[in-house]
């Protein structure tokens, strides 16, 4: 159903207007026995008023108040009616100062004209309002659908990722080695691997997760990688008290950390440290991930954000409709990823 066409001026609008103008013309000419030129002016008045309906439509297109929007429409319609009617009356006074009977009639009918005009303009305004609301709702719906699709894709991607040989099979290979060398560690590794996989299965898409839970989950992953890569990998994970009471969408950090490990470990020969730091400022949770990388090994280091982070940016955009929530920086062969997560409600901030 379409309440209002995209373009305010179309053929049905013009046809309707012409019909009303003709009726008005006939009524003024035959019923009120006015001269024909006066009837023409009267029908032009109708067209003039319809310009006011266009004005309110354009106004609502670019500005719709959040609260009291119907009251706003009534108010704007009132102002428009008074302006348009007075303008018409003044024009007639200027053009035909000698047609006193018409001017008197015009003067008397002004309040009636205003009431009718107001009703017509308010009606047009309300219709536009409903249409734009519907439009906004549709957009929201579409955005939510894309978000759902995306998180489903992320879920699938995540599953595939975990089933990829580089993590699961290499971990199992490490366990295979540990069974002979240090059975106790092999057992720990099995338990960590199970916890990690259970954690990833439990994660539901919609539910936000407290940051400490997410960090704990990431540490499981990092611990497993540490067993695999031995002394080469060390990590520093920290978050301040306010950040620790914050929430994050599930699986938001996982790909960032995976990237950090991948580029950190495969770009360099030396031992590396990956730092993950969380803090909170003015209702926004900041999470920063640092990893070493080799600029000379990465193709087009200056082009875009790269490192497969575009999907995270997209996800943040769909969650918050903001493009500025993911920042990356590269300096001195350290790659920094900064994620900002606006908190849904504030318990800890008192700003």
């Amino acid at each position, binding site marked *: 159903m379409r309440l209002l066409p995209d373009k305010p001026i179309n053929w049905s609008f013009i046809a309707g207007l012409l019909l009303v103008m003709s009726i008005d013309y006939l009524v003024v000419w035959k019923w009120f026995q006015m001269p024909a030129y006066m009837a023409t002016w009267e029908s032009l008045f109708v067209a003039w008023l319809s310009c006011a309906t266009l004005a309110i439509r354009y106004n609502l297109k670019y500005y719709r108040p959040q609260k009291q929007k119907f009251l706003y429409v009534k108010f704007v319609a009132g102002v428009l009616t008074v302006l348009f009617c007075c303008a018409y009356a003044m024009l007639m006074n200027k053009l035909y100062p000698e047609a006193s009977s018409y001017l008197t009639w015009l003067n008397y009918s002004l309040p009636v004209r205003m009431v009718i005009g107001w009703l017509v303009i308010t009606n047009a305004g309300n219709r536009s309002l409903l249409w734009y609301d519907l439009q906004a709702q549709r957009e929201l719906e579409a955005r939510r659908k894309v978000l759902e699709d995306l998180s489903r894709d992320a879920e699938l991607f995540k599953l595939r990722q975990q089933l990829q*040989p*580089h993590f699961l*099979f*290499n971990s*199992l*290979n*490490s*366990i*295979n*080695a*540990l069974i*002979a*060398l240090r059975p106790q560690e092999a057992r720990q590794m099995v338990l960590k691997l199970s916890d990690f996989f259970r954690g990833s299965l439990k994660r539901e898409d919609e539910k936000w997760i407290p940051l400490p839970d997410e960090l704990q989950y990431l540490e499981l992953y990092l611990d497993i990688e540490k*067993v*695999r*890569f*031995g002394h*080469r990998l060390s990590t520093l994970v920290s978050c301040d008290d306010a950040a620790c009471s914050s929430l994050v969408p599930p699986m938001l950090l996982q790909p960032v950390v995976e990237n950090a490990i991948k580029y950190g*470990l*495969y*770009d*360099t*020969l030396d031992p590396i440290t990956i730092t993950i730091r969380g803090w909170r400022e003015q209702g926004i949770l900041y999470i920063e991930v640092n990893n070493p990388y*080799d600029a*000379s*090994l990465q*193709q*087009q280091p200056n082009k875009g954000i790269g490192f497969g982070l575009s999907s995270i940016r997209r996800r943040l955009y769909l969650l918050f409709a903001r493009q500025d929530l993911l920042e990356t920086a590269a300096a001195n062969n350290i790659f920094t990823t900064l994620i900002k997560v606006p908190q849904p409600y504030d318990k800890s901030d008192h700003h």
Partner: protein
Amino acid sequence: MIKAIIIDDEPLARAVVKEYLASYTQITLLQECGDGFEGLKAIQQHQPDLLFLDVQMPKINGFEMLELVEHLPSVIFTTAFEEHAIRAFEVNAVDYLLKPFSKERFDKALQKWIGTSESVRNLATAQVIAVAGTSPLQSNRIVVKLNGKIKIIPVQDVYYLEAADDYVKVVTEEGAFLKNKTMSFFEQLLDMAQFARVHRSYILNVNQVTRIEPYEKENHLAILKSGAKIPVSKTGYPKLKAALGL
């Protein structure tokens, strides 16, 4: 005595091979290496008979390392990546062990290798060299060796490639590097939106071209930013124009 070397960036992965190797008294494990650079050095130093090689390693991967080895030993790949298997058999590896692998599977691979005669092994090695020279893994970098040092050149840094007998000269800002490959190898390796085979003996980076001049009857010369003049043949000219989007 059989000399062996393990090259793998994960200590525990090396430990498995080492453990499995312990029962083979005729095989001496000379060294364990954590990356391709160390591996290359060890191969040159010890001239091993057998290599246990991981694929995914820091800086340069197993295949890239093999490209730089002069006298190839027999290679048994040990990796978790199934998708590398085809390439491994193309380079005629003795076997391809998918991590995690059992002692039985490991024994089978070694038995197969021990069972083959020296001449067959040498033949296999020759094939490794031949096949490795024709089958590139789509890549965005070229690994070269210069005075014993390994250099990784991102493809966008390459000015042009020039055929030079059995080698290909890779010309960059820092100079020219020889690589024991064919022109068709690079034609496959490089993204032909960025590179064009403008001549039987030349592939050039189209981003480096500043202008094209007519030369002799039907030929042209491409002038690069570096000032180098590259001949463009009659058949090469349309390819260059296409790559430049003309």
